[in-house]
Structures are given as structure tokens and as C-alpha cells.
């Protein structure tokens, strides 16, 4: 089951770094997918006018993305597969951002091709992969398991390949070129069965092309004859029938070809590593110029290229470019040349259907259609991309928003500690800060309780609250490391400096607490990694630096403590190991190779400190959950894993309750190459409801005796009205899947609710039932630990984020005035959690175009204009019998506010549960509810149904 943890992203002003290493456009030309060196995947919305807007960012990979490809027939399922440097593979739904399937294989792919042969294949098709391994690997597109390999006589790595589908020869073949320049061709469709039976499949032809560094090979489907081979120095055209060379064109000096595609019959587009592309027309030169007159056979015809057009990215080039071309002949689709750069910029060119040179015959330049970066979106939607404590800095002393460079959230104190690039450290209350950031309420901002710690002279690079993970540390200790090479131990409650360690070895990059099982005298010890690859062991109680190990040549990858012999074992990135004696500070041993591995693995069972300095965040997560880490011990823990699994874990076993669990957490996320942190707010829905319930249990016992029936009915109908829009909204926000069915589910569900006008007791009964059910849980948990007010505020914040503001003025006022659910200042960026290590976050600019028509202020948080339409219809229909008794309402809300909030929340939980059910169940429910919903219709609901199924 998926976790029911709604997430809300708080972006900063700078976009996360996204160095594009792979780029593709989906078949419907509506989404651009890019993979980055940082490991994230970004989804971009491509409008029909070729305008780009960032949509979502997908987290989950821990290494650089090497390739992207479609993973299904796109019309049926919008799935895309991604592969990374360290062998991870993931299938994503690009409309919802969900991770569908994931795996980790010991293969590094450089490209993947989707192959499906509908009439001869069962299943979802194959992914044909090649990369840093021999020959071609066949992977099942659904399970991501390795099916088989296509082998060859002299195996080698494959550099490029293409699937040749020719109607003429009635056979799909795979043509590939190896790193040594040998062209190999396999039969695909006729060897389907032997592949399925895992028999060896060898190439049917192979030929040495004598071209090194082959970059692309393409078959011309228009002529069904030409084969384009692009290598870094030249491109060549071969005759597919007999593999004879037809023409060769070398590149300009200093340039390298990177790829190419066939535009039309005898028309090619070739692009280079540095962002140029060239469109050629192949002209027939007749027989006279044949290059093979001597071989005695029939004279071959040859072709020669004529340059028609070219494209260029003029300024701010950043290597390397990854380019691609999308060839669509049908309207309304375009022929698009696209490129992604290491700077994260995407450039599109619209290639005309019939490219032509200028009148005087010189090549014509095709203008750039669009250029876009993530930062552009952040600049455009600046209200969304405001940092979590920006408003604090402004109100304080007019400093232009200090960039948060490191942060830590302390759940037990609800304190958010943010270190900034100006050396200041802000300590605020997490929930209050989030409220102030999101909600439209001026009074919150000015007097938000916060502390500023001044101690560092430059950027704060890392923070550690050691007590958070291990009770042996003093709860008042807070450690901060800075660019100025100092580590300061603060008293978090008073803000005083307890001690300042000056290390003098470059910026502090990591602060790590010592393992739990080490000797008593080392109990309050932390380790500190500096950018000169040195490791300092600091004793907090004694306020001394026990050891400063400075001999490491390569970045530190692992730190371990040998508790018995008092040794510090440091593993570096070059796989060497340094063993230091902590007492004397001497280097005991320095080992490389097998011995180094043996030393590291022998200490595996004792506690480790650092995992991998390349991924500070994922490392963070691993460090914090040692149990998990040890069992997995590979590096695939994602960034989110810590908090998510922790919450998951603890909600599983509330009974043993070692952790005081808040229903609300702030997760700081730091991406590679980026100084700025952003934050993700996580709400634990189930938890929230449980806590609210337990608090209501006492307060609300017999409050079901109402005198004013009308008013309550009114209240109920409003809540339900709200629930209608709310749920629509919610589906959009959480599952982000715009499937029509999803909307139908909730629409119908609401129909049931609102149509069966139940007596009040019934609704009370339902609640009581729920209470009973969950009170079992709540009993086991010491509710005293959790402040009910905080929980209520959390619930209100969550509801604020979810409510469709501006749809109905009356309800808006009601919420703000009576329920104390405040308006949002700006639309929020939701997140969607697929599993413990994969999640997606909306980026600023997501669906901005949709709400842009309407006034920004009145309408926020609207996912689709259709919600508005529906609500209007609903209002029109219900106006008759709800618009009357306003006078009596107010006082009821006063007392019932909490209950209504709770009611709304429990609804959300319910919906969430429905969505989390296995798909088979869901469809059953859907059909059930559909029937139920349409039976007792009021006209509007029918319309709702109809329109929502259209969605």
C-alpha cells in the first residue's frame, strides 16, 4: 500500500540545479522529459505553441541519469523508463509523476529502445538496452527483469543501434554498431520465440565499418534503403541492402558529430556535440562519380550531400549538449529538434516540413523557437518560489532574503533550524513558519517567535542536532559547521555559544554523530569532515578536538569506528582505507585494494558514520536509520527515505512508541551542485486524524444534541459542497493523475453523501464508529506528548493548502471567519510519494497557465477551471433550498468548528484510502459508486458525473 503522506514543497528562489544528460519528448508532444546529472528527472509541459513550462520534478535516482525512453505504447500508458549510471532503472508515469516500477541491475545502459511486436508478443513489450556491457540486453518493460541477451560472435560494447522496421522485408531487425566499429544485425521478429525460450541468438550479419566512435545509426523508412551512420568525425550513408558506402561527409575541425536522424527521403539532419545541427539534401550524382569503379561489378550510384539549413545556439553554451529530433508528419504535430544543456537549458527548433536554403543557395538558419530553464519558471512564479524563512529575514532587518544553505528540523521540539549563507542561523517553530509562509495573515508574520544565532562569518554549510537520533547527547546541543572552517556548539534554548572549534581545513562539509555502541568516554563525540578531505573527531563534553586526520588524498566516503580497539577507519573514494588511532592521533595503516575492502567490510557490523559524501541528503537519510542501512548496505536509499520510512515505521508500531511522532514534519532537501536548500512539508494524514479524534473524544461526547436542526442541515450541506470541490481538488493534488475515473470516484461518492439526506444521528453514528475504530489505536499512544493545538493548526494548514479558494466566496468567508482556515497567499506545490524512496514534487509554474485567465488573487489553488464550472453548476442547483437561513448559522459554527475540520480531514483520509487500494478494488468501487451515484440523481449531480467522466 502506498503511504498516505501528503507533501507540500517549499521551494527557494533558486531552482535546483538540473544538468541535463538525457532528453526526450513524449509521443503526444505534450511533455518533455529530462534526466539530469544530479539524478532527478524533470517533466516539462509543452504547449501546442511550443511554449515550455516546468511541471514536476521526480526524485528517486541516486546517480546521474544516462538515458530515457518510452516504456509502453504511449497512447495506452504514458510511461517512461529512466536508467542511471549506477544501474538503477525506473518506470514513471509522466502524467501523474508516480514511480510504477523500479529495479537495480548491474548494468549501465547508454540507451534504451522500446520494442513491441503486437501480434507476436504477449506482455508489455521489451526494452532493448545497450551500454557498458557486451552486446544487447533484453529487459521486460513491465517487470524490468532481464529476459535475455542478443549475443554475437565477437562480443563487444555496443555504441549505437536502431530498430529497422521495413514493410518490404516483413521483418524487424536490430542494427547496432560496436565500439570497435563493427556493424551487427540481428533478426528480431523471427527470433521472438527463441528469445523467449532463452536460446542463443546470434547476429545474422556483421561487417566492419572502420569507423571509430560511432554515435548514431538510423534507417531511412522513406526509401527503405538508406542507412545513416554518424560517427564523431564523419557521417556516412550506406545502402542497407548490401552495406555498400554511398557517401561520406567529414565534420569541420574542432567539431564532433553527436547524432542524426532521417528527415524525409534523401533528407537528413545531423547534430554536433556543441549544439549545431545541419540539414542536408542527398543529391544523386549519377554513375559517373562512383567511388568503386575498380571492383569490376556494376557501377554503383552514389550520392553527395547538399547543406540546406543549420541551427545554432548562439550564447551561453554549456557543454555537453544532448540533442534529439522528433519527426512527426501528422498535423498538429511538429518536427522538433530539441537540445538540453548541462546548464539545464532546453532549446527547441521547429523544423519546417520542407526545409529549403536561401535563394542564393547558401544554407539558411532555422531560428530558435523556444528556450527555457527551470530558473525561468522560478522567476516567473516568484510567490511560489519563496524560501521557507524569507519572510523572516525581510521583517527583521531588511536583508535581502538570506539563502538557506543548510537546515535541520527537530520534530520533538517542532523547531526548524536554518543556516544561511550570511552566517546567521535562524531558529523558528516549524509549523508556525510554514503557516506564515503559506497563509494570508499579516499578523503572523511580524511576531513569529524566532531566534537568530550569530557566530559564523560566512555560509553555514551543515547543521546537526545530535540529540535527535541518540539520547546520549545533551538535548540543548546544536552543532553548526561553516564555510569558515569552524564548528560551533550552541545551546539551542538560550542561543549561547558553548564552544567554538576552529579546524583550519577548509569549509566543513559534514557533521556526523558517533555510533551508539562506542566506548563510554566517546559518547558525546561527533565527526566532522572538511573539504580538504580531513576528518576531525570532536568531543563535545570535553570541548576538545580529539583527532584531526589530515592525510586523505581523496574525498571521504565512509567513516567507521572500531569500538574495541579505539580506531577510526576512513574509507576514501579511491577505495583506499586509512586507519587512525584515536588516542594518539597516529595513522596506523593505509591500505588499498583487496585489503582495504576487507578492512571496511570487517567493521560493517559496528557502526558507520558517513555513507557517501556525494549525496549529502541520501546520506543523511541513511545515517539516520542505521538498521535500514545495514540491511540494504547498497547506495540506493533515496533522499526521502529517512523521514518517510521513519513515519511509516512508527505508525506501524505506535505501541512501542520510542519516538514522539508529530503528524507534521519538515524535511530539508539539498540537491547536488546547489547551495540552497528547499524544504518539503510532510503531513501524516492518519496520524492527524487519530490525534484529532482522541482530543475530540472527551470534548465532544454528547454534543450531538442540537436544537437548531435547520442550521445544522445547512452546515452539513455546506461542508459537503466544500467536500465536493475539496475532493476534486485533492485528487488533482495528491494523485495528480488526471484520469477521468479518479474524478468520477469522488464525484460519485459525494453524490451519495449529499443525495441521501441522512438524519443527523446517522452522520454522528459514522463518526462514532470511526472513533471506536481508531480509539483502539489512540489508547496505546500517549496522547499527552502531542499538543492538540499544534495538531489542529496542522490540520488547518493542510486544509488551507487543499481548499479551492475563490470558487465560492461564501464558503471562503465561512472558512476564514468561522473555521479559522486561512486563505493561501499563493498556490502551493504539492508532492506525491510513490514509495519510500521515490517521490515527485510540483514545480512553480505548474498549471499556471490554467489559472492565469482569472485574477490571481481571488483564485488560488485551482487545478483546473473545470472545478470552478462544476461548483457553479452545483451552486445553481442547490441555491433554492440552501440560501435561506443564514442568521442562525454563525453560533453553530462557533462550537462545531473543530468537528467540521475533523470531518473534512476524515473525508480526505477516506479518499486517500480508496485511492491506495489495489487497482482491481478501486475499479470495483468505482463501478459500484457509479451505479449508486446515478440512481438517486439530482440533476446537477448527473451533470457532475457526466462532465467528470469527460475529464
Amino acid at each position, binding site marked *: 500500500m502506498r503511504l498516505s503522506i501528503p507533501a507540500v514543497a517549499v521551494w527557494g528562489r533558486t531552482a535546483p*540545479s538540473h544538468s541535463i544528460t538525457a532528453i526526450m519528448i513524449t509521443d503526444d508532444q505534450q511533455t518533455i522529459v529530462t534526466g539530469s546529472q544530479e539524478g532527478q528527472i524533470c517533466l516539462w509541459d509543452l504547449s501546442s505553441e511550443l511554449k515550455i513550462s516546468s511541471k514536476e520534478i521526480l526524485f528517486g535516482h541516486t546517480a546521474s541519469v544516462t538515458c530515457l525512453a518510452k516504456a509502453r505504447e504511449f497512447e495506452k500508458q504514458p510511461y517512461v523508463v529512466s536508467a542511471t549510471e549506477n544501474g538503477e532503472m525506473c518506470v514513471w508515469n509522466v502524467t501523474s509523476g508516480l514511480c510504477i516500477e523500479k529495479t537495480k541491475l548491474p548494468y549501465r545502459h547508454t540507451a534504451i529502445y522500446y520494442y513491441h511486436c503486437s501480434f507476436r508478443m504477449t506482455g508489455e513489450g521489451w526494452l532493448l538496452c545497450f551500454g557498458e556491457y557486451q552486446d544487447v540486453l533484453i529487459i521486460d518493460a513491465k517487470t524490468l527483469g532481464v529476459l535475455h541477451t542478443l549475443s554475437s560472435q*565477437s562480443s563487444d*560494447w555496443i555504441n549505437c543501434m536502431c530498430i529497422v522496421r521495413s514493410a518490404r522485408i516483413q521483418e524487424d531487425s536490430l542494427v547496432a554498431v560496436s565500439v570497435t566499429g563493427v556493424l551487427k544485425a540481428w533478426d528480431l521478429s523471427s527470433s521472438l520465440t527463441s528469445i523467449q525460450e532463452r536460446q542463443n541468438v546470434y547476429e545474422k550479419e556483421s561487417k566492419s565499418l572502420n569507423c571509430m566512435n560511432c554515435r548514431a545509426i538510423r534507417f531511412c523508412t522513406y526509401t527503405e534503403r538508406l542507412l545513416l551512420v554518424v560517427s*564523431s568525425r564523419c557521417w556516412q550513408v550506406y545502402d542497407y541492402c548490401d552495406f555498400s558506402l554511398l557517401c561520406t561527409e567529414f565534420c569541420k575541425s574542432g567539431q564532433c558529430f553527436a547524432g542524426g536522424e532521417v528527415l524525409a527521403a534523401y533528407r537528413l539532419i545531423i547534430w554536433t556535440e556543441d549544439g549545431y545541427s545541419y540539414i542536408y539534401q542527398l543529391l544523386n550524382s549519377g554513375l559517373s562519380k562512383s567511388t568503386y569503379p575498380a571492383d569490376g561489378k556494376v557501377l554503383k550510384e552514389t550520392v553527395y550531400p547538399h547543406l540546406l539549413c543549420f541551427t545554432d545556439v548562439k550564447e551561453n553554451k554549456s557543454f555537453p549538449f544532448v540533442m534529439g529530433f522528433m519527426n512527426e508528419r501528422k498535423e498538429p504535430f511538429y518536427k522538433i529538434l530539441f537540445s538540453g544543456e*548541462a546548464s539545464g537549458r532546453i532549446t527547441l527548433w521547429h523544423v519546417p516540413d520542407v526545409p529549403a536554403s536561401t535563394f542564393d543557395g547558401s544554407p539558411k538558419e532555422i531560428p530558435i523557437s523556444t528556450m527555457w530553464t527551470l530558473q525561468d519558471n522560478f522567476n516567473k512564479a516568484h510567490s511560489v518560489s519563496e524560501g521557507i524563512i524569507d519572510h523572516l529575514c525581510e521583517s527583521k532587518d531588511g536583508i535581502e532574503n538570506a539563502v538557506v544553505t543548510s537546515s535541520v528540523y527537530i520534530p520533538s521540539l517542532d523547531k526548524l533550524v536554518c543556516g544561511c549563507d550570511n552566517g546567521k542561523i535562524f531558529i523558528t517553530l516549524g509549523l508556525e513558519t510554514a503557516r506564515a509562509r503559506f497563509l494570508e495573515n499579516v499578523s503572523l508574520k511580524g511576531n513569529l517567535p524566532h531566534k537568530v544565532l550569530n557566530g559564523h562569518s*560566512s555560509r553555514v554549510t551543515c547543521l546537526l542536532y545530535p540529540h535527535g537520533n541518540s539520547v546520549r547527547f545533551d538535548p540543548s546541543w546544536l552543532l553548526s559547521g561553516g564555510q*569558515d572552517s569552524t564548528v560551533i556548539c550552541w545551546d539551542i534554548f538560550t542561543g549561547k555559544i558553548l564552544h567554538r572549534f576552529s579546524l*583550519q581545513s*577548509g569549509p566543513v562539509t559534514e557533521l556526523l554523530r558517533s555510533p551508539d555502541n562506542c566506548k563510554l568516554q566517546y559518547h558525546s563525540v561527533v565527526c566532522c569532515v572538511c573539504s580538504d578531505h580531513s576528518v576531525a573527531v570532536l568531543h563535545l563534553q570535553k570541548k576538545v578536538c580529539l583527532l584531526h586526520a589530515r592525510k586523505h588524498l581523496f574525498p571521504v566516503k565512509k567513516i567507521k569506528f572500531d569500538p574495541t580497539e579505539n580506531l577510526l577507519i576512513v574509507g576514501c573514494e579511491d577505495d583506499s582505507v586509512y586507519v587512525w588511532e584515536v588516542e594518539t592521533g597516529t595513522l596506523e595503516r593505509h591500505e588499498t585494494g583487496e585489503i582495504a575492502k576487507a578492512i571496511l567490510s570487517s567493521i560493517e557490523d559496528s557502526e558507520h558514520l558517513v555513507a557517501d559524501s556525494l549525496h549529502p541528503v541520501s546520506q543523511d537519510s541513511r545515517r539516520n536509520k542505521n538498521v535500514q542501512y545495514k540491511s540494504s548496505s547498497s547506495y540506493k536509499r533515496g533522499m526521502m527515505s529517512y523521514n518517510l520510512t521513519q513515519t511509516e515505521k512508527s505508525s506501524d508500531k505506535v505501541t512501542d512508541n520510542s519516538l514522539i511522532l508529530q503528524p507534521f514534519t519538515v524535511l530539508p532537501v539539498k540537491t547536488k551542485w546547489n547551495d540552497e536548500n528547499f524544504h518539503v512539508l510532510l503531513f501524516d494524514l492518519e496520524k492527524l486524524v487519530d490525534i484529532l479524534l482522541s482530543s475530540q473524544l472527551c470534548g465532544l461526547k454528547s454534543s450531538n444534541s442540537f436544537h437548531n436542526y435547520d442550521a445544522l442541515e445547512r452546515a452539513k450541506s455546506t461542508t459537503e459542497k466544500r467536500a465536493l470541490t475539496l475532493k476534486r481538488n485533492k485528487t488533482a493534488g495528491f494523485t495528480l493523475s488526471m484520469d477521468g475515473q479518479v474524478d468520477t470516484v469522488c464525484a460519485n461518492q459525494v453524490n451519495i453523501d449529499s443525495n441521501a439526506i441522512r438524519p443527523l444521528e446517522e452522520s454522528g453514528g459514522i463518526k462514532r464508529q470511526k472513533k471506536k475504530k481508531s480509539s483502539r489505536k489512540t489508547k496505546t499512544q500517549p496522547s499527552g506528548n502531542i499538543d492538540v493545538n499544534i495538531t489542529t493548526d496542522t490540520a488547518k494548514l493542510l486544509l488551507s493548502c487543499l481548499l479551492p479558494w475563490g470558487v465560492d466566496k461564501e464558503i471562503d468567508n465561512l472558512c476564514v471567519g468561522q473555521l479559522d482556515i486561512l486563505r493561501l497567499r499563493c498556490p502551493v506545490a504539492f508532492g506525491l510519494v510513490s514509495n519510500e524512496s521515490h517521490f515527485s514534487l510540483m514545480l512553480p509554474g505548474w498549471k499556471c497557465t490554467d489559472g492565469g485567465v482569472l485574477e490571481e488573487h481571488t483564485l488560488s489553488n485551482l487545478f483546473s477551471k473545470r472545478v470552478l464550472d462544476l461548483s457553479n453548476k452545483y451552486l445553481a442547483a442547490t441555491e433554492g433550498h440552501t440560501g435561506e437561513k443564514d442568521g442562525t448559522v454563525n453560533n453553530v459554527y462557533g462550537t462545531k468548528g473543530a468537528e467540521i475540520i475533523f470531518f473534512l480531514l476524515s473525508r480526505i483520509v477516506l479518499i486517500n484510502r480508496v485511492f491506495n487500494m489495489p487497482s482491481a478494488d478501486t475499479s470495483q468501487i468505482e463501478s459500484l459508486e457509479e451505479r449508486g451515484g446515478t440512481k438517486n440523481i439530482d440533476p446537477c449531480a448527473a451533470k457532475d458525473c457526466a462532465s467528470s467522466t469527460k475529464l
Partner: protein
Amino acid sequence: MAAAMVSSAERAVLEEEFKWLLQEEVHAVLKQLQDILKEASHRFALPAGGSEGAAKQENFVLSVAGMDQVKGVLTLQGDALCQADLNLKMPRSNQLLHFTFREDKQWKLQQIQDARNHVNQAIYLLMNRDVNYHFKTGSEVLKLMDAVMLQLSRARNRLTTPATLTLPEIASSGLTKMFSPALPPDILVNFYINLNKLCLTVYQLHVLQPSTTKNFKPAGGSILHNPGAMFEFGNQRYEVSHVHKMECVVPWLNDALVFFTVSLQLCQQLKDKISVFSSYWNYKPY
């Protein structure tokens, strides 16, 4: 050290130095790296396009010191073992067995092939930024170095870590079918590279009778299996009775490994140089 304390004059000097680093020093290091790696790549003697068979053949004699039970003469050509000559003296019967590779076959040493390909990838990465390329940011260099180092450390790892195979995997590999006369079923052969050495292991097996009282416990994957390791292959249970491990230093592999280590250090040093400047100001990460 700290940014705030750097005066404007000092800052200007630093910026000048950083500019020099990006424009001059980086290219100098890249050039040096390319030279070293090309040298390493030559060692792998990739038959350059067109000149087939350019890779020269080298003979290596593998034997166990002081023992004449097993002796092998291997001929290495680039990434392939093109000839092998194996002499075995069976311990019990004192019978002398002689095997050679079939004429039409050669055995690709995947480790060498992979290492070679990784080096060439690294060279390709470096070649793309020639002297004319203008590095604008530090992180651009860092990213390039990361990519190059990844390739280099993989190349090195391929040579330093032989595949761990299970005995059934060795038995079923194509290697057993390479010999003429065919290897008897109670002999297994495996070739691999370990660091700078070409290694040959010969396992002598004996069949475990189904009635045997011994506890059958199949051995897992390992680079080198010890006598007593058991496995099941083709409905027959075997136990390793003798293991002969022979190795011979391949000089050019040693060179290649040294080149890898040196270039990895160069890369790291360049990265460190770039990172130093990040302490002074926030060099734009793109």
C-alpha cells in the same frame, strides 16, 4: 579564509587567479590527462581502424613454481586469448594431458575489453573540450572531472576485481568448449585478470556418488575456489579435489594500472584546486 573578511583588492586578485585556473591551468591538466590516457589506451593495443591484426601477440608462460604438474602457455592479442597450450599431469595416474585452443576460436578477456572501453570513453570525454573551449564556471570542470573519474575508476576496478563465479557457471561457460581435444568432464579451467596478472586456474574434480555420506553443500561465487568446494552440474555432483592457480605478470597491464592511478590523482587535484575557490565566493554553480 572567510568571504566576509576578504577585502576588495584581495578579492580581485582571487578572481584573477580563478580566471587563470579556468582558462590556463584546467586545459594544461586536461592535456596532461589526455596524454597519459592515450598512453594507457595504446597499451591495450586496440586494433586501429583498418589495420587489422595490428595488435601484437604476446606469449606468457604460466606455471607454479617448483611444480611441474600444470603448465600453461597463453598467447594474448589485445583483449583476446588467441592461443592456449595446457599441459596437465594427472596426480594419480601420472598421465600427461595436453590441450590447446581450437584453431578457429579465441577467448575474449572481458575485463581487458571493458577496461579498454572505459579508458576510451574517458579520452572521448576529454577530447570534447579542446583548448578552444572556454570554461566559464568551476562546477563545469567539476562535472567533467566527475565523469572522467567515474570511467577511470571503473576501468581500474575491472582489472582489480575479477568476476566472482560459481563452479556451475565456470562449467557452463564457453571456455570449456574452446579446447581440442575436449576437456574431460572432471577438469575445469578459468582465465581472468587480477591486477596486473593474467591468471589461470585449473580445477580437478571428482564425482560425488549419490550414496556418499558427505554433506552436500554447494559453494557460492568466488574468484578462486578451494579444494573441497562442491557443486551440482548436469545432474551430477562434483567436489573439487585439486586446484592449480598459475599467474604471470603482464607488464603493460601494470603500466595501465599506474596510468589510471596517476590520472585519478590528477583529476582529484584539479577538483580540489577548483573547490578551494568556493570558500571565497559562491562561484556560480551554473
